[in-house]
């Protein structure tokens, strides 16, 4: 219901434009608070100060996956229900996800050097995140290479859905192949194994990352709507000039 009501681009812009400044402010406040907590939190007894990389690294990795999920769901709506806005939403999410994934890879590498003694290890998690990053790149390249907007949206939506089915398999196969990275320590059936003093800053940072994503996403969807409007107008003007 709400989704189909919001599918009108005009209405979408009108509803979300006033929300965006508050969202940006909330993101900024959460980041300041989260970063303060990162530095106020205790050192790890084993890792010392380098553990603080975790507060940047872990949420970025979560966001890389989360953004992909958002992209897959948007693509699904775009493909099945033919919402033009859903196509725009999927397209708008891709570069954000790519940046989060790249951030996870880079911070992971910087963390790996002091902890594991290596910048890069061909271990399961790292490889599957790298594949995810390549996937984002492929998605964007495919979108850019097809001129017709509707066709580009459709092809990339199919790709995103195939990816949605395939990425868990890739991840599982890569994990099965080799693993050095530690297992999950926050989302576990028997509760998190991270100490509360470190869990809090992590959760606040995760919330800040999510808000940042939503904010950027809304801005990018709006840009997409505007650029379509602009292209439509330009086509109409050139058509009129050509006809006269």
């Amino acid at each position: 219901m709400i989704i189909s009501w919001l599918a009108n681009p005009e209405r979408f812009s009108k509803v979300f434009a006033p929300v965006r400044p508050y969202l940006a402010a909330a993101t900024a406040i959460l980041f300041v608070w989260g970063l303060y907590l990162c530095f106020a939190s205790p050192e790890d007894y084993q890792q010392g100060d380098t553990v603080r990389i975790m507060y940047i690294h872990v949420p970025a990795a979560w966001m890389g996956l989360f953004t992909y999920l958002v992209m897959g769901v948007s693509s699904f709506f775009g493909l099945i229900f033919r919402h033009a806005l859903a196509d725009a939403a999927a397209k708008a999410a891709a570069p954000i996800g790519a940046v989060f994934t790249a951030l996870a890879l880079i911070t992971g590498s910087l963390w790996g050097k002091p902890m594991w003694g290596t910048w890069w290890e061909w271990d399961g998690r790292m490889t599957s995140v790298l594949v995810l990053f390549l996937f984002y790149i492929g998605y964007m390249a495919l979108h850019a290479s097809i001129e017709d907007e509707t066709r580009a949206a459709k092809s990339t939506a199919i790709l995103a859905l195939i990816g949605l089915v395939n990425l868990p398999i890739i991840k599982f196969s890569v994990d099965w192949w080799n693993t050095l990275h530690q297992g999950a320590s926050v989302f576990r059936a028997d509760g998190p194994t991270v100490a509360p003093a470190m869990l809090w800053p992590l959760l606040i940072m995760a919330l800040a990352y999510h808000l940042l994503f939503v904010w950027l996403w809304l801005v990018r969807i709006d840009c997409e709507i505007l650029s379509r409007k602009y292209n439509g107008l330009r086509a109409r003007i050139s058509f009129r000039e050509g006809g006269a």
Partner: protein
Amino acid sequence: MIPAALALLKRDLSLAFARGGGPVLAAGFYITLMAMVPLSLGPDAQTLSRIAPGLTWLCLALASLLSLERLFERDYEDGVFDLLRTGPLALEAVALLKCLAQWLGTGLILSLMTPVVMIILGAPVDAAGLSLIAALIGSLSFALIGGVGASLTLGSRKGGVLIALLVLPFYVPPVIFGAGLMDAYVTGAPIAQALGLLGAYGLFALALSPIAMGAALRSALN
């Protein structure tokens, strides 16, 4: 319907062979790639025999990328697809048959060469049968996933490299399972798990890729 399918398969196969390029080109590429390995890594027999199973899988994956660009492109450009669309076969079936013809023309031949190449690089001779079966399943999955990539990039401006970028991440599981299977065999570990997973991925590709190709072709033709 079945005569139509057979006719299409026959047409695509004879086109693949008549063009001269397809199978011979792929086989030549495969052998050249393999010949580069000892040249670049050194001819040390111990190293080569250790990495032989993995290398053959890598080269199989790369060689199967070769003719993907032309899989649908030609028929798309000269309007054969519009004609096929009016025929008795669904676009999904057309795409699947084209992938099958592509596989018979290249993947099958590369698979037959795989045990030979592996033995030349120093893998044990008794692994030949298993490596052939694994390569057959693997190359079929490569052909099907590759078909999806080819159908998605129809009408885009930079076909070849883009297909490789789209498709290679999805080649990861069969490469891991295939190379893992050979490794397990050589080291004497149980092979059932890797073989089962490889087969599962192949069936999975067989079930889902026609749907994706059909949707992509339909969007390209409209």
